[in-house]
């Protein structure tokens, strides 16, 4: 049996967890590959106009998996506990897909901790649907969980090393499904590198710590993913030179949270980039270039002042 994993949305958070879990149970997995023009076009065609870009892209990935696997994995996520909600888009992906495509076979698990729907329970149920015993599923889940954690820690370590670099460093504050998407975030981080700067990723930090630190910017924010991201600003502030808030049109949570960041965290130069499906690259590149110039000037000035003091 083959399980299809749409390479969009939560894939970027859970790739290892999902793959390990299914492999442990003896199933194959297949991903939908990188976002490309066709995936995007299909996504747009099968989405309501006003949906956010990542969710449109998600639909494109789901579409491309139909017929290539026995099940498509679409978890439903509401919260990870009290005041740890996620964007309501994740509440509905399962039902949206189910009502949009005629012939999809969805495998899902439900994550809503405040209602007693924990991740482990969801995975055991999933295993049972696939005909595996609860015990075996539990083992597979535990193993998968460990693998994901290990992977995450290594990534964080790797970035910590990069943070030591002398080059100009920009923190990309954005959801991983935006940052790493071939179509949205990738061209931007690639361009930054081409200009000789280093992108630092706000999702590659110790999430527990960043969650705590996020309260310094807001104590009433309750979107977990956004909290983790703004906590990263607090954690890395002294090691970076500028911040890029990267969001997709029209993202609900980000429209408010980014406004808050712009108003509350003023230490570093910050720009807000909003990407939509009609995005032209040229305009974006000019903005990034001039942003880097501003940062460079700032740094030069600082250096001058320091020299004078010395």
């Amino acid at each position: 049996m083959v399980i299809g994993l749409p390479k969009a949305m939560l894939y970027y958070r859970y790739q290892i967890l999902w793959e390990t879990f299914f492999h442990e149970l003896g199933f194959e997995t297949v991903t939908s590959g990188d976002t490309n023009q066709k995936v995007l076009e299909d996504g747009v065609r099968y989405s309501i106009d006003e949906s956010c870009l990542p969710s449109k892209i998600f639909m494109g990935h789901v579409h491309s998996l139909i017929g290539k696997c026995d099940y498509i994995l679409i978890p439903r996520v509401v919260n990870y506990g009290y005041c740890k909600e996620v964007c309501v888009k994740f509440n509905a992906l399962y039902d949206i897909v189910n009502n949009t495509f005629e012939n999809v076979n969805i495998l899902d698990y439900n994550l809503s901790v405040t209602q007693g729907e924990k991740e482990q329970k969801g995975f055991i149920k999933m295993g049972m649907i696939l005909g595996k015993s609860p015990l075996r599923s539990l083992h597979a889940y535990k193993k998968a969980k460990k693998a994901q954690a290990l992977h995450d820690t290594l990534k964080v370590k790797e970035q910590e090393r990069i943070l030591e670099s002398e080059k100009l460093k920009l923190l990309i504050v954005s959801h991983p499904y935006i940052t790493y998407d071939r179509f949205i975030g990738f061209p931007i981080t690639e361009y930054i590198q081409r200009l000789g700067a280093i992108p630092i990723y706000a999702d590659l930090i110790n999430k527990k710590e960043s969650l705590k630190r996020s309260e310094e910017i807001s104590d009433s924010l309750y979107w977990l993913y956004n909290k983790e991201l703004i906590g990263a600003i607090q954690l890395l502030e002294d090691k970076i030179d500028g911040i890029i808030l990267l969001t997709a049109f029209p993202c609900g949570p980000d429209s408010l949270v980014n406004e808050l960041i712009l108003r509350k965290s003023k230490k570093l130069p910050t720009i807000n980039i909003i990407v939509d499906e009609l995005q032209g690259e040229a305009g974006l590149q000019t903005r990034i270039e001039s942003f880097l110039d501003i940062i460079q000037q700032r740094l030069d000035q600082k250096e001058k002042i320091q020299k004078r003091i010395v």
Partner: protein
Amino acid sequence: MQKIISFPHIGNYYVPIEIFLKLIFPEHIILPSPKITKRTLELGSKYSPDFVCVPFKYNLGNYIEALENGATVLIQVCGGCRYGYYAEIQEKILKDLGYQFEFIKIGWGKFNPIKIYQLFRKTGASASFPTFIRYALLTIKMIEVLDSFESYIRENIGFEKKKNSLETLHQQFLSDLRTVRGFRQLSRLQSEYKSKLKTIKIEKPSDCLKIGIVGELYSLMEPFSSFFIEKELSKQQIQVRRFITVTFLLNKLKLDKKILKSAGSYLKYAIGADGTDSVEKSQLLAKQGYDGIIHMKPFGCTPEVNAMPILQKISNDYKIPILYFSFDSQTSETGVKTRLEAFYDMLLMRKEHEKCKQLI
């Protein structure tokens, strides 16, 4: 020091809210924000983040106009979707603009009367806890009376024999409601207006056009934000049905599971905020033989966007037309009116067509 307490608008609910605040803050002045006008929205949009949903902009405009009138305390109720997070940003924006005020944020999600009481205590409410609860219950009751009065009007105003009689009564009702301070007075008022409603002659043909309205709650409950669509429809002798009122929302706290169950053939899970209701109610309207449905929401409202693919499916399955509106601060009134007109013309023609078919 005497404070001037203000709050944003939504429909006619300012009446019960104002009374509630007057009762618990007898020493302070209660000053609802000025009625929403174009200026309110312009002000709100000017200082809001770009693509935040439009209720945020209305609220912000309300606050600015209230502050201009001298308000020193502002109240925001948080809950639902993005709504829960409005307050913090609005406060920051207003403070950055240089206004000085106290901001009371009432959390709605975890509805905890003691916490809310403490919040009000801090702002200078002197009532004891039991009195506070009594006033809160009175307010809820008042909202129920208001909602049931207005829903009668909504369904009948297109069919009154003498034009404007319901509208006149509505205004009278609101001004009388403003004088209510106790349960007994309220129930007297309720029965008085019940009989007054009965005296107004209604001539409703049994086959009149019936349209149901679903969608996001602010768009539904604040008529200014939807260009008075309900009124437009009733002028055309259409019976308008809408489920979402504050009374409905208050009861919903207990109803969630049931709603999901009855939307069961379309939904496995709740899809966020009012999205689930929109699905369930649309199916209900379709089953009850309504001629059409109007779905309204602020532009980009995620829970309602979530509902839309499912509404499209219902529309196909039951062959019931649905008109979708998305409002933001740029929405043109003429655009809305033209689409609305085309929609009910189409429904009328469909209906005639059906009738002819039956004759043959």
